[in-house]
């Protein structure tokens, strides 16, 4: 995903002289392509995230479209109050791009995990939150981000994620992408859980079920229409995300469901309210804590 991000940004920057990229000293072997092509529009600020966000805001107030890239905790949490005031409150045209969603940096440890970021970013007024699920969604979202003025958080995995989408699929910020229409129940994923979700759908299909499969690459603004449609069709919803079950995709969907008088059930598949102290890859951490198990169709209420 990060390779797709930088390739797309380089392409955009060729035609758009207002695109500026900064980093608080992370992005080795990722950002060099941009830095080489546009040395006047790239800055390594040093390991100083608060200053980096302030500089991003100052550049944006001077007319630049600024992208700030780092590992998620350092582009969202270390500098949260700067994000709140210098970007969200002032509504500046800054896109925060974080890599390493969920347990992507698995054995690096919890300092580098990102399980709270969707919650704290989506609560900020003016802030959009996009969590593309595969390289195709990354390309579409980054392309569109340059056309949407204002704050946005783009949450990425790492690298080598497979492409799940067909190359003709519609991916539009703020609108869910339906990968498969169904009738029995719905699986809604965000971010890199798209890959796992696709494997669940294949398994359910093999069992003879007909699930709807939705990629919610934009968590804010949430596509309420698709949730409303699922409720209208009386379909239970599974929300799958590599994020805490507090405040992420599942919470956002439950906020919509709460407005209806409905029997529709929400099954939240995410990370419980704990930090991982297990050492291992993201997959191994998930296995250790028993996370992301495919819900049985009984759980789904069939």
């Amino acid at each position, binding site marked *: 995903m990060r390779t797709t991000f930088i390739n797309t940004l380089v392409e955009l920057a060729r035609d758009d002289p207002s695109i500026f990229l900064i980093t608080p000293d992370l992005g080795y072997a990722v950002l060099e392509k941009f830095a080489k092509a546009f040395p006047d529009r790239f800055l390594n600020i040093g390991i100083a995230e608060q200053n980096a966000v*302030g500089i991003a805001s*100052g550049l944006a107030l001077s007319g630049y479209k600024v992208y700030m890239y780092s590992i998620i905790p350092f582009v969202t949490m270390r500098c949260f109050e700067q994000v709140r005031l210098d970007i969200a409150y002032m509504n500046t045209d800054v896109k925060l791009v974080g890599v390493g969603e969920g347990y992507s940096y698995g054995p690096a440890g919890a300092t580098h995990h990102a399980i709270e970021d969707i919650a704290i970013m989506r609560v900020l007024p003016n802030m959009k939150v996009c969590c593309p699920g595969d390289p195709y969604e990354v390309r579409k979202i980054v392309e569109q981000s340059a056309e949407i003025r204002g704050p946005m958080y783009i949450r990425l995995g790492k690298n080598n994620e497979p492409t799940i989408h067909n190359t003709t699929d519609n991916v539009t910020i703020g609108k869910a992408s339906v990968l498969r229409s169904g009738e029995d129940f719905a699986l809604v994923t965000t971010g890199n859980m798209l890959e796992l979700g696709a494997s669940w759908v294949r398994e359910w299909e093999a069992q003879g079920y007909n699930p709807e499969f939705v990629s919610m690459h934009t968590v804010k603004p949430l596509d309420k229409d698709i949730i409303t449609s699922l409720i209208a069709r009386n379909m239970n919803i599974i929300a799958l995300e590599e994020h805490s079950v507090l405040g992420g995709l599942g919470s956002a969907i439950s906020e919509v469901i709460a407005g209806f008088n409905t029997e529709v059930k929400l099954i939240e598949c995410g990370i419980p309210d704990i930090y991982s102290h297990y050492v291992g890859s993201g997959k191994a951490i998930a296995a250790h804590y028993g996370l992301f198990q495919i819900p049985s169709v009984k759980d789904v209420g069939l």
Partner: protein
Amino acid sequence: MHEKKMNDTCKELRKSVLDMMHYSKSSHIGSCFSIIEILYTLYFEILNTRPANLNDPNRDIFILSKAHASAALYATLAFKGFFPRGWLKRYYIDDGILPGHLDRDAVPGVECSCGSLGHGLPIGLGMAIAKKTKNASGKVFVLLGDGECNEGSVWEAVMFASTRKIDNLVAIIDFNHLQGMGADVIDQANLSERFSAFGWHTEVVDGHSIEALSGALLSGSPGKPLVIIANTVKGKGISFMEGKLEWHYKSPNDQEYEQALRELEKS
């Protein structure tokens, strides 16, 4: 003649701030009075910033990072015609126009929302870098408090500005020696040496002398950001407020208001 006009204007600015604080029953009056001469010097002597050129990329930009002293900036902007002076009555009250801390959407002339300390210098640095990248003229001036220099983000910006030789950035430190809960919370006796050590051109001046401030603001060295350590007195101009921490928090009652007004009129 010019000197009399300067003094009269500073007196009028202090009276405006006093009125605003008394009317709205709000405070930070001490923090406002320590920066009156600094704001006067900037807006009446130095800045190429006018209501008519706010969209000119070559204008000078001023950021009040110690934005709890917003009332002093509002008074100055109103005097310079950025908005009607009548709006000063609508500071810090219900259905107000002017918030206690700065919101750039509130009125013309406020270039940056500020209020949480340690934000203005990084943002100003970003603006100064943008000017260089776009080959735009003009400078970016950021006014900080000495207490604000406790914030780590200030020093992140200080280091990067000198590394990148951002010499169109000017920081002014309102060195009034009093912060939230008193003096000497953090030892800053060698503040100017600290800036020098980080590669800045440093000037130390009397922060209530317009002549000294003007000279310092026009100085500098090519390739270096400039900092002016302005030695000031918190509450300057009112005998019972000068150097008193409580005037960070207190609003003048009717009697104190009358006395302060008398002192200003006699000065």
